[in-house]
C-alpha cells in the first residue's frame, strides 16, 4: 500500500508514492539526495535530521513521509548549500537548545566553568571540539566552528554523549584489584599500585628467566593516545614478538596492497572535490575513515556521483547513484571483474599504462582467463553493474575511492587491496586533486621507530616462522597465533598476557577458543576503564585513566598523517592512572628503565622532537597536519613504476600479481548452513566498547540481526523475536529485524555484544557475541594471517 504524497522541500515540489514505513528522512535522503540533513541516532535524540515542517522544528526520522503531505519542509541545505563544512547555521537546526545536551552530574549551580579547545578522542574522525568543564568535570563537548580545524557534524553525537558519560560513569574501575576467587568467578580484592605492579613484574620476569620473554604476550586495541606505542615499546624491550593488534583486519592489507603497487598509501583527497566517490565496504556517515563526511556533502552538492558497494543498504548506499550489493566476502572477485572491464574495454589511461607500469601485459593476458559470467556467479552482481562501475570509475575524473575495513576482513584482502590500487593508478586517479593522494607527514617521531627499537629486533619469525610476512613487518601477530601458542604450546608456550584497553573475549574471532586460552593462561593483567568480559578473567585489573584525564598525543588513524595534542582537562577518578604511566612504571620494575622515562610525560616531548617543539609549546598549536604535493608518477617502488607485477612479492614468496584463483575464492557452503553471515559496525558504539553509555544504549538497546522477510518466512521466524544464529563455530541469539533491501541469502548480525548491566561475572559474553560464530582458521590470508569475517556459512532458527 502506497500513498501519493506531495512534498515541498526548500521550495521544490515533488509528487511521489510513499509506503507508510518511509520516514520523511528516508525520502529526503533517497529521493532528494540531501546529505547535510542526516541520519544520526534514528530515535530523535541527536538532532542530525532536524527540519522545519510548517514552521516547526521536527526530527524527520520520526515523521512519516505521508504525514508531510502538502507541508512546507525547510532543511538546513536551504541556507548552507555550497558552504564548506559544518556551520553555525547547521548547528542551529541540530541543537536549537545547546544547553539541553550538557551533562548534569548532580552539581547544581557550577562554581567554575571553562571552555577548552581539544579533540574528540572517540572515533577516527578526531574532530576539534570545545570541552565544557564545570567544577572539574567534563559536562559537554561542543562542536568547534571557529578555529577552522576539522570538525564535522557528529551525526549520532557519539563523542559528545559518550565521553562525558564515560568520564563520570558509575561503573568506572577505580582501584587496582587482584583476583581472590577462581578465575572468572568475580571475586576481587582492592590492592595498592605497588602490590599490583610488583606482582606483574615478578611474574613476567620469572617467566622470562624460565621460558624466555616470548612466553609473555601483549594484546593491544585500536590506538587511542600513546598507549598503543607504549605497549609496543614495552613488548619490544621485554623481548617478546607476541603482540596482537587489530592490524590484521584494519589498515594493513590495503596499506600493503598500495605499498607494493605504487610505494605508499594514498587516501581520498579532502582538500578538493572529487567528481566521483567510490565507497567500498564503508559507511562513512557513521564510521568516518580516510574520507570526511563533508567531502561527501560537497561532492553531492557539486553534482558529483557516488558508487557504494555494500551488502546492506547503508546510509551511503541510499545516497548512491549506483549501489552494488555483492555477496559478502566476494569483494576480491568483484574487483577482478571491474579490472577486467577496465583493461578489456581500454578504459585506462594509455600514457600511464604505456610508460609507467610493470606487468600490464601479463595482467591483460590473465584477465582473459576468466569471464564476467564467472564474476557474476561468484559476486551475485549483475554483469551490467560491474561494467557500469568500471566505466563510471574510469571516465569520471577526479575519482576518489575509499576502501573500508570490511574489505580488509577477507581471505584475500591483500590481493583485493592490490587490485584496488591498480585500478586507481591505471585510471589516473593517483596524486591528482580530488583523487587519492599520498600525504607527506609533518615532522614527528614515526610511531614505528617509537615502538620498534633498533637495538632489540622483534624476531617475529620465532612465532610466525616464514608465514604472514606482512604481520611480521607490521609488528603484530594474528590473534589465532597467540591462541594456538597458549592452547597447543605451538611453536612455544605463552603463559602470561597483558591486555591494554582491549576485550579479546569479544573482539577476537572464535570466542569459545579465546575463552579456553584465557582460562589456560597462568597470569593475565589488564588495564581497562570498566570491568569487561575479558577483564573479568584477569588476575590483576588496573584502572586506566581515559583521554582528557591526562596529557596525551594522538597520531591515529595513521592514514591521516597528523598529530594532535589532547590536554588534561580533569583529574582521573580515584586511583586511575594513564595507561602510559602504568606501562612506564611497570617497565621500571621489569628492569627496563633504560628504555623508558622517569615520568611517562617525557615521551610526549620525544614524539615531538623532530618538530623542534616541546609538548607544552605544541599544546598551543594543537595539531600538525600533513602536506600533499600531488606528485604525478611518484611511484616509490623498486622499478619507480606502478608494479602490477611485483618482483618484490615474488621474492617474499607471494603471488606477484593478483590472480582470479585467489580473488574469486569463496568459502564452501555446506548444506546445513545455507545462508551467509556478515556484519556492520553499530553507529552507537565503538567496536565492543561502551554498551554502558545510557544515551547510546537507547539508540541500540539490543543486538539486532537482519534478514530478508522471505528468508524469515521460510524458516518460520517472526520479526521482533530473538532467534538463534549458528555456524560451525557456535551459536548465539539476537533480535530479528526484517529488511527487504537485503539479499535473501544474507544474514547481517550485530557485532561486539555483551551486557555490562548483567549481574554476572561474564556479562553474558556467550549470548549474542558475533565472534562466537567466527571460525579462527585454518583458512588465512597468506600475507597477514587474517581470517574472514564476511560471508560465513550460517543457519537461523527459532530461539
Amino acid at each position, binding site marked *: 500500500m502506497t500513498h501519493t504524497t506531495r512534498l515541498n522541500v526548500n521550495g521544490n515540489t515533488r509528487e511521489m508514492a510513499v509506503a507508510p514505513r518511509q520516514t520523511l528522512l528516508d525520502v529526503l535522503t533517497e529521493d532528494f539526495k540531501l546529505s547535510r540533513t542526516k541520519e544520526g541516532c*534514528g530515535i530523535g535524540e541527536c538532532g542530525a535530521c*532536524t527540519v522545519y515542517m510548517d514552521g516547526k522544528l521536527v526530527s524527520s526520522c520520526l515523521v512519516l513521509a505521508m504525514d508531510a503531505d502538502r507541508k512546507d519542509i525547510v532543511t538546513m541545505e536551504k541556507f548552507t548549500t555550497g558552504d564548506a563544512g559544518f556551520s553555525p547555521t547547521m548547528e542551529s537546526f541540530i541543537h536549537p537548545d545547546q544547553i539541553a545536551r550538557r551533562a548534569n552530574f*548532580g552539581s547544581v549551580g557550577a562554581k567554575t566553568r571553562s571552555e577548552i579547545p581539544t579533540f574528540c578522542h572517540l572515533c577516527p574522525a578526531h574532530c576539534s571540539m570545545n570541552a565544557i568543564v564545570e567544577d572539574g568535570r567534563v559536562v559537554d563537548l561542543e562542536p568547534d566552528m571557529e578555529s577552522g580545524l576539522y570538525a564535522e557534524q557528529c551525526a549520532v553525537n557519539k563523542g559528545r554523549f559518550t565521553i562525558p558519560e564515560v568520564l563520570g560513569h558509575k561503573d568506572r574501575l577505580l582501584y587496582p584489584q587482584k583476583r581472590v576467587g577462581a578465575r572468572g568467578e568475580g571475586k576481587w580484592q582492592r590492592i595498592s599500585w605497588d602490590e599490583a605492579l610488583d606482582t606483574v613484574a615478578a611474574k613476567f620476569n620469572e617467566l622470562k628467566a624460565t621460558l624466555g620473554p616470548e612466553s609473555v604476550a601483549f594484546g593491544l586495541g585500536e590506538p587511542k593516545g600513546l598507549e598503543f606505542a607504549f605497549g609496543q615499546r614495552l613488548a619490544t624491550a621485554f623481548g617478546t614478538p607476541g603482540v596482537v593488534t587489530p592490524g590484521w583486519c584494519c589498515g594493513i592489507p590495503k596499506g600493503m596492497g598500495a605499498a607494493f603497487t605504487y610505494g605508499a598509501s594514498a587516501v581520498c583527497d579532502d582538500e578538493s572535490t572529487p567528481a566521483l566517490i567510490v565507497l567500498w565496504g564503508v559507511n562513512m556517515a557513521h564510521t568516518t575513515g580516510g574520507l570526511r563526511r563533508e567531502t561527501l556533502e560537497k561532492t553531492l552538492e557539486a553534482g558529483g556521483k557516488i558508487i557504494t558497494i555494500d551488502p546492506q543498504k547503508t546510509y551511503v548506499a541510499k545516497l548512491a547513484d549506483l549501489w552494488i550489493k555483492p555477496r559478502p566476502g566476494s569483494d576480491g572477485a568483484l574487483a577482478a571483474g571491474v579490472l577486467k572491464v577496465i583493461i578489456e574495454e581500454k578504459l585506462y589511461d594509455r600514457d600511464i599504462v604505456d610508460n609507467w607500469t610493470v606487468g600490464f601485459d601479463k595482467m591483460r593476458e590473465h584477465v582473459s582467463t576468466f569471464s564476467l559470467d564467472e564474476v557474476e556467479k561468484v559476486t551475485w552482481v549483475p554483469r551490467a553493474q560491474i561494467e557500469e562501475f568500471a566505466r563510471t570509475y574510469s571516465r569520471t575524473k577526479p575519482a576518489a575511492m575509499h576502501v573500508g575495513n570490511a574489505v580488509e576482513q577477507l581471505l584475500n584482502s591483500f590481493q583485493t587491496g592490490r587490485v584496488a590500487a591498480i585500478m586507481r593508478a591505471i585510471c589516473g586517479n593517483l596524486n591528482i586533486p580530488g583523487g587519492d593522494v599520498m600525504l607527506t607527514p609533518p615532522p614527528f617521531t614515526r610511531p614505528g621507530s617509537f615502538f620498534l627499537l633498533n637495538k632489540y629486533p622483534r624476531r617475529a619469525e620465532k612465532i610466525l616462522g616464514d608465514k604472514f610476512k606482512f604481520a611480521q613487518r607490521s609488528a603484530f601477530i594474528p590473534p589465532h597465533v597467540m591462541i594456538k601458542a597458549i592452547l597447543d604450546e605451538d611453536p612455544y608456550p605463552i603463559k602470561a598476557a597483558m591486555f591494554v584497553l582491549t576485550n579479546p573475549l569479544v573482539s577476537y574471532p572464535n570466542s569459545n577458543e579465546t575463552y579456553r586460552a584465557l582460562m589456560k593462561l597462568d597470569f593475565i593483567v589488564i588495564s581497562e576503564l570498566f570491568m569487561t568480559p575479558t577483564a573479568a578473567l584477569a588476575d590483576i585489573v588496573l584502572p586506566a585513566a581515559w583521554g582528557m584525564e591526562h596529557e596525551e598525543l594522538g597520531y591515529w588513524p595513521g592514514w591521516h598523517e597528523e598529530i594532535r595534542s589532547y590536554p588534561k582537562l580533569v583529574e582521573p577518578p580515584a586511583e586511575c592512572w594513564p595507561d602510559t604511566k602504568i606501562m612506564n612504571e611497570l617497565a621500571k620494575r621489569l628492569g627496563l628503565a633504560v628504555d623508558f622515562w622517569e615520568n611517562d610525560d617525557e615521551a610526549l616531548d620525544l614524539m615531538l622532537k623532530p618538530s623542534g617543539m616541546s609538548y607544552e609549546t605544541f599544546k598551543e598549536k594543537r595539531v600538525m597536519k600533513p602536506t600533499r604535493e600531488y606528485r604525478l608518477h611518484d611511484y616509490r617502488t623498486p622499478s619507480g613504476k606502478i608494479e602490477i607485477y611485483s618482483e618484490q612479492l615474488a621474492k617474499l614468496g607471494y603471488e606477484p600479481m593478483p590472480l582470479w584463483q585467489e580473488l574469486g575464492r569463496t568459502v564452501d557452503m555446506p548444506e546445513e548452513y545455507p545462508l551467509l553471515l556478515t556484519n556492520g559496525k553499530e553507529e552507537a558504539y565503538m567496536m565492543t566498547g561502551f554498551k554502558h553509555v545510557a544515551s547510546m544504549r537507547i539508540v541500540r538497546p539490543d543486538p539486532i540481526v537482519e534478514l530478508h522477510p522471505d528468508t524469515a518466512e521460510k524458516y518460520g521466524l517472526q520479526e521482533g523475536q530473538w532467534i538463534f544464529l549458528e555456524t560451525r563455530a557456535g551459536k548465539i541469539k539476537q533480535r530479528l529485524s526484517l529488511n527487504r533491501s537485503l539479499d535473501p541469502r544474507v544474514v547481517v548480525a550485530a557485532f561486539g555484544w555483551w551486557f555490562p548491566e548483567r549481574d554476572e561475572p561474564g556479562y553474558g559474553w556467550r549470548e549474542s557475541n558475533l565472534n562466537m560464530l567466527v571460525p579462527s582458521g585454518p583458512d588465512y590470508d597468506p600475507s597477514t594471517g587474517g581470517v574472514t569475517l564476511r560471508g560465513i556459512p550460517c543457519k537461523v532458527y527459532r530461539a
Partner: protein
Amino acid sequence: MQLGLPEFDMIATDTVEEACSLFSGYGADAQLFAGGTDLFIKMKQRRLLPRMLINIKRIPALDRILYDADEGLRIGALTAIQSILDSAVIGEKFRVLSQAAAVLGTPQIRNLGTLGGNLANASPSAEFAPPLLVLEASVRCAGPGGERLVPMNEFFVGPGKSVLSRGELITEVHVPDPPLRARCIYLKHSLRTMDVSMAAAAALVSLDGNVCREVRIALGAVAPTPFRARKAEEALRGKRLSGDSNDRALLEEIGRIAADESRPIDDLRGFASYRKKVVAMLVRQGLEQAIARAKN
C-alpha cells in the same frame, strides 16, 4: 546503519468513535498513532510490531487547551508538548505543567510528541505524571463502551501499562484548579536536561499562615509507576514552619521519608541507592521552593 521502520499499514480516522471501533476491531495488531515519538522508537527497535497504525491526528477538537473558572483546565490528548509550553493560561495558572514541558526532550520532540502519548506510553518516568498527580488531574478515556474519567493516581498500572483497555484512547486531561494559594514545583534529575529522568518529583504546598495546610508530593522514575508519596505528605501536613534552620531539618526528613517510599532500580544511568538520595534531594528542594513561593 540505523534501523528503519518495520512494515505496517496505516488507516486514518477523524472521529473518536471510529478510532475506538477500529482500535478494538484490529485487536492486538493495532496501535494508535499520534506524535510517534515513543511509538516509532519501539517499532524501529523491533520491540513493538503493530501491523496497523490508526492515525488519530486529524480528529478535531483533541488538539486544544481550554480553561474556565468553573471547570478548570482541559487539555486535549493531541496537544503537542510545545503547545503546553507556549500556553499563556498554563503558564499563569498551572506553571508546573510548563516546567514539565520545558524539560521534556528537545524542541524537535516537543513539536511532535503529545500529552496523550506521554501518558498512554505509561513510562515510569513520564514527564507529566508527577505534576498531574499533585494537581489531582483526571484522564478522560473513550472506548467502545463509552467514556470514563480516570483519576490520575489510578491511571498507571505498571511499567508501560495503564488502565486503558483495548480499543480505548485518551481524549482529554482534566486539571482542576489547584487549592487556593497553593504553589507547585516540578524538579527532574537526569544526566542531561533532554534525557529521561533518573528521578523526578512534583511538590504542591499551600500555607495557612506558617502551617502547611495542603501538601502533595509525587515521584517519577523511581518505582514501577509514578506515585504519590503519601507518607511524606502526611508527615508534613499540619506542620508549622519556624522560618529558621529547623525547617531545613524538617524538609530533609520529609525527603528521607519520600525516598523510603520509592522503589528504584539499578540501571545504566544510576544505582538505586543513588536514586534514593536524589529523591530525598529533589523532594526537599521542591518543597523549599514551593513554600518560598507560597509565602509570597
